[in-house]
Structures are given as C-alpha cells and as structure tokens.
C-alpha cells in the first residue's frame, strides 16, 4: 500500500525496521458499535490490571447500581472496580481467569434495570494531581490490551521533561476494529481529551498516530483538530505505515518521534507517554460525566462467528453471552482467542468474564489458519530480519534449549515483547515465541540462583 499523504497529516519520523505484513482482515471496520442488552449476570474479577489486586468492598446480598464501587485497594499501581450492572451481589469468591491465575471475583445478578448510581458526578479537576487522582478513581486501565493502570503513566512531575503524548490508534493486529470505530464514532472526545491532557500535563506535542490503512479515521481526526484546536495546533495526526507491530509501544515512540526507548526503559525515559485512543476518549467522557469504566467495546469476529460485530458490553459479561449476542457460532469453533491473532491468548472455554483490557473475541473454525509442519531451522535469518527489537530469535532459541544463561543475557532477549513476528515468518514453523519465553525464564532462574 502506498503511504498516506494529505495536507496537515504528518508522516512517520522513522519508518522503523522489521515487522511483518500480515493480512489486515478488518472485516468489521464498517460495523458501527452496537450496545448489548443487560446480561443476566456479570462476574467482576478483582485483578483486571497489571499491579495489586483489589479487595471486594461488597458482600453477598448487597444491592448495587452501575458505577458503584465494589473493589479497591490502597496500593497505587492498581485500578478500582465498579459494578457494571444494577442488581444483587450473589457471590464473592475465587475464580480462574483465562490465563490460569486465580483471582477473587464479585458476581452480580442483574435486575435488568441497568440503573445508575445516583452519586455519580463529574470530578473536580484543577491541578495535575487532581487529574491523576480522577483517572485512578475512574478505574481506567490501558484499553489497548496490556491493562496497565493509566494514572500511573500520568503521575509524573513537571520536572520529568516529558514533552510528547503519543495517542496510539495504530491498531496493527488483524481483525480488531474497536479503536477504528472509536475514531469514527467518538472523534470529538478523542481530540477534546488530548486538549485536556495537554492542559494539565503540559505536553508540547500530541501526536495521534494511525496506520495508513485507515484513511477515513485520519481525515476525520484532522477535521476535528481544526475544529477544536485550530490550525497550527500542538495536536496533529500522523499516518504510519501499516506494518505489524506498528502499535507496539516502543515502535510507536520511534515512528512518531524518532526516539528509541533503551532496553529496560519506558517511553517516559525518552520524554513520551503512549496512550490508547479509546483510553483518551474515555478520560474525556469521565471528566464530563463522572461515569467510571463499566463497559467497553469489543470486536467479535472470526470465521466461526455467525454475525461479526463491534459490541459495547458491560465489563464482566460472560464471553459466551457476547458470542450468543453475535448470533452464536455458525461453525464449530476450533480456536477462540481473546485479543488479536498475533498476540492474543487462546481460550479453553467461553465461560469467562470479559475484562477491562479485552479488545476482541475471535472464534475460528478449523482450517482458517494454515498449519506448518515443524521442521529444523534452516538458518534463513527471516526471524532476525523481521524482529522489531533487532534480536536473533533462532540463536536465542538455541541458547534457551541449552540453558546458557550468560549468552542469553547478552542476546538481549529481555527486550522481546513477544509480538510473534519471528514465529509468523519462520518457514520451518518453529514456535519461536515459546522459545523466547523459555529464554526469559532461564535468565530469571539464573538470576534467582545468584
């Protein structure tokens, strides 16, 4: 695809090395987000973010309304959990999450009313401290998939020299279109949110970065910038090359600013904050209404889904209910993935709740993806060519198998973000991502011994 160019739209500072051209499969790009009716019950795990789990503040039998606090903690790196339907708490206890970990969870049986908590009111925000506090209180975590509590990223002092906010609307994973829909349906909130964050946090520049396979979104956002921020504004839209993993945080920072985040460091160390586009729009809505994070959009797609959709769903709704709302399965599913096909995790069943950070549910029939026989490495070097982190996956795999911790540490495997580009291209069909994970655990084990 040719690069996108239009007046007022920036082009990427660095094109970036590595990466793979994966089929976009954005089948649901024109499916406007539809709201799902109240589910019969929701299950709200107390661990829906990176950081400390929340403690339930309700007990069985309590009546709750939407937006009422049901879980919180005094730890900073955490995000409170709110009731997402109105009804009665029927259980508080341990459940197993999709990744196999055990978490406490609150089950609420819906009364079908979807009544809002009356005490909900817009927060008063006058200083940057107020803003960070408000964002924490909103329960927001990165909506792009990682689930990192957003306020932690924003809680930097004015002395930190952080000058750029990069708004991540790349959406480089195949199939997923929720961020694109966010751009098309809530562009006003996105741009207003950028202005608000700039006002309190003093960014010199705000870059809304979109892959160039979404020209309508680029155009709409440019128009909104003109409308709300004027012509020569600090906000601009940037068209990035559509190449996986363009949306990865470090890639994003490099493409948008030319800065490279060193190994083991964060974007903040090079003066950047990267935020998902839906998170920005949410912050603006929250500051206007005070309604915390109780629902989110997900793309439901894949060859086994009868009618693929973008759905706005109360958090905690069972995946099977969501799939049922999308017409159920038209074919027997072979693989169900939470997230995209490059980095999402395959699920053992659909009887699990939707979490804050889940952006897609994809169900595929057998034969959708080609399966390669696993052969010996032919040292073709394709994995090294595509690695966005400039690693040598095949070499790392070899060291990992022989558990050579010293060599692994030199190999730089700890910067691997498991984007899967290497395994995608490998002609020998090797499970390189698993080898990378093994390599990391070898290093950790060796470190623990020391």
């Amino acid at each position, binding site marked *: 695809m040719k690069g996108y160019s239009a007046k007022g739209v920036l082009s990427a500072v660095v094109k970036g090395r590595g990466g*793979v051209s*994966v*089929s976009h499969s954005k089948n649901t790009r024109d499916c406007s987000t539809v709201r799902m009716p109240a589910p019969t019950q929701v299950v709200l795990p107390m661990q829906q973010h990176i950081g400390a789990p929340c403690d339930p503040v309700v007990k069985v039998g309590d009546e709750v309304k939407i937006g009422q606090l049901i879980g919180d903690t005094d730890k900073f790196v955490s995000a409170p959990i709110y009731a997402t339907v109105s009804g009665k708490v029927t259980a508080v206890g341990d459940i197993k999450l999709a990744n196999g970990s055990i978490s406490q969870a609150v089950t609420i049986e819906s009364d079908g009313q979807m009544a809002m908590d009356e005490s909900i009111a817009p927060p008063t925000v006058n200083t940057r401290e107020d803003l960070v506090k408000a964002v924490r209180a909103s329960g927001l975590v990165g909506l792009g998939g990682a689930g990192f509590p957003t306020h932690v990223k924003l809680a930097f002092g004015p002395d930190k020299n952080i000058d750029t906010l990069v708004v991540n609307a790349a959406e480089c994973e195949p199939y997923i279109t929720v961020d694109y829909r966010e751009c098309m349906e809530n562009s006003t909130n996105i741009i207003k949110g950028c202005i608000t964050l700039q006002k309190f946090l003093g960014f010199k520049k705000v870059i809304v970065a979109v892959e160039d396979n979404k020209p309508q979104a680029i155009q709409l956002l440019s128009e909104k910038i003109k409308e709300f921020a004027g012509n020569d504004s600090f906000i601009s839209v940037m068209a990035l090359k559509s190449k996986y993993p363009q949306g990865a945080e*470090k890639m994003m920072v490099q493409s948008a600013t030319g800065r*490279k*985040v*060193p*190994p083991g460091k964060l974007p903040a160390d090079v003066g950047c904050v990267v935020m998902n586009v839906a998170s920005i729009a949410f912050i603006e809505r929250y500051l206007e209404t005070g309604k915390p994070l109780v629902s989110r959009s997900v793309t439901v797609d894949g060859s086994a889904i009868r009618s693929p959709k973008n759905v706005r769903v109360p958090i905690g709704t069972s995946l099977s209910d969501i*799939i*049922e709302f999308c017409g*159920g*399965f038209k074919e*027997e*599913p*072979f*693989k*169900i993935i939470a997230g995209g*096909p*490059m*980095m*999402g995790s*395959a*699920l*053992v*069943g659909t009887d699990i709740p939707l979490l804050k950070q889940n952006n897609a549910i994809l169900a*595929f029939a057998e034969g959708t*993806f*080609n*399966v*390669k*026989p696993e*052969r*010996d490495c*032919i*040292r*073709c*070097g394709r994995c*090294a*060519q595509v690695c*966005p*982190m*400039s690693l*040598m996956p095949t*070499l790392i795999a070899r060291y990992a198998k022989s558990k050579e911790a010293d060599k692994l540490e030199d*190999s*730089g495997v700890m*910067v691997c973000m*498991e984007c*899967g580009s290497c*395994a*995608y*291209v*490998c*002609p*020998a*069909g090797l*499970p390189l*991502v*698993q080898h990378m*994970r093994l390599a990391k655990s070898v290093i950790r084990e060796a470190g623990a011994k020391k």
Partner: protein
Amino acid sequence: MSVIKKLTVSASPHVRSPQTSTGIMLDVIIALVPALIASVVIFGYKALLVTVVCVISAVLAEYLSRKVMKRHQTIGDLSAVVTGLLLAFNLPSEIPLWIAALGSVIAIVVVKQMFGGIGQNFVNPAIAARIILLVSFPTAMANWATDSKFVMTSATPLASLKAGEVTEDLPSLLDMFLGRHGGSLGEVCALALLIGGIYLIARKVISPVIPLVFVGTVAAAMFIAGKGDLEFVAYEILSGGLLLGAIFMATDYTTSPVSFKGKIIFAIGCGLITSLIRIFGSLPEGVSFSIILMNIFVPHIEKLTTAKPFGTPKRDKKAEKAAKKEKKEAAKA
C-alpha cells in the same frame, strides 16, 4: 448456549505466513531449471544423466543416513535435491557416474548429516564434495566435453586466461554468455544462471547483496589485474563457476551470515580469495575454495556483525576514554 466440544489452545501467534522450508527449496530448484536445460542443450543427455544420478543418490543418502542415525526423516524438505543439483552442476558432463554418486554421498553424509543435518553444517555440502572429488580424481574432474557440437574448445577459458590477457583462442563473449565453452555442466551458461538468480531475488528467497558484492569484488580485482582491460574483466566474470557460486552457493542460508553487514564482509572475502587464486594461484579456478574458506569464517563474522537489541545506546568512545584516563589519574594520586 452453544456447546463447545474441544478447543485448541496454543501459544501466539495464531497466524503463520504461508512460506515453508519446502517451498523455499522448491524455489531454488525452479531457479536451477534454466541452467539444467542449458547444460542438456550444450552437453547432451549425459548432463541430464549426471544430474539425475547426483539427485537420486543425494536423496537416498539422506534417507538412509537419517534412518541409520534414528533421526526423523527430512527428505521432504527437498534440501537434498538442491544439494544433488548443485553438486551435479559443479561436475563435468563426462564424469564417471559412480564418482558423481560418491560425491553426493560425501556431501550429504559426511558434510551435512554428520554435523546434525539441515541448518547445522558449517560448510556448503556441494562445494565440500566437489573439492574432495577434485583432489581425489583430478583427471576425471577435468575431463571437459569435447564431442559436443556447441563447445568450441576443450580447455576452459580460465585456463587460457591465466596468462592475464585475452588471447586469440578464447570463445567470443557472446559464446561465453550463452555457455558455448568448456566447463562444469551447470556453470557455463551465464544467461540461465542470471535468470535463476533474478527469480530467487524476485521471490525474496535470497537477497541480492552476496551475489552483487561477490561478483563486484572479482570485477574490481580483475580490473586492476588486467590493467583496466574491460574485455578481460568480462571474460573473468563469465568464466569458471563465479556466477553459479555467487548466486547459488555463497547464498546458502546455513553457511552465510544473516545480517546485511555480515553478508557484505562475507561476499568481499569470497571475491578477494577468488581473485587472488585466479591471479596468483596455480589452480585455474578459485570460487569453491573461496566460498568454503569464507564459510569457515561465518561464525566469527556473525559474532562481529550481530545487531544490538533495539535502543541499545551507542558506545560513547570519548566518554569511555575519559573515564579510563580519570581512573588512571585517580590510581596515580
């Protein structure tokens, strides 16, 4: 609620590119077909016979050696077919068939399988086998075709070029380009080799770096050796196994560096050694020796040229020097 019987759970990524090892090998085989057709046209059915014997014995050797070593079968990846083809292309059409078959067995069993099979051999199997045959059967390996209606001269052009200038008894440059001269059966037709090379580059099986730098280095060296005689340079490029070696042998994944920088170093090395042997050595040809020598250097080249992980700060040599100085001074004080 829908009932789900069994779901497949595996690690990401869930999508894979359509490219397979077998597909890559098949592309190499396709790229070698023009040269095979040319050799049959030039040297007759014997060229085909030698090729078939090499391929069959290579595949059989791979099958049997894997079986004996109780390892999983790998003949399905077609790499043994490629090795057989490449070895055949490095032999004269008059070679006794048993020597050709022996070459395949050496390539597959000794050079490839004994080091662990595909991806593990440290030198190119076909080249190593060719060199072993060259040393063991020098007469048979230099028995160039004389009865073909296409081949004008029995000596290879390189033997005539050795004197360092273009002489009368050389075939014309056009004959050199089309392959109407003596030589190994796959190396003579430059046109066919170029078609194969362009196909491999277009299919992204190989990068053009190694062939271009390899041939370029030889051209530059010969330009100096021939005192600026461009005709001499052209003869040097078109004769011997240079194009076959640069396009098909030096680009072997297993025995060439992965990084761009490494490829350049490797190819310059190949070109220099080839030129030195051709200019100063007593052998007429140096491509095989240059590639095998550089193959041995590959692990070291890799070590020197491996990219640093993304974002690794550049070494600040000035600061390092200053720090050292300070330390020294501190020690003095």
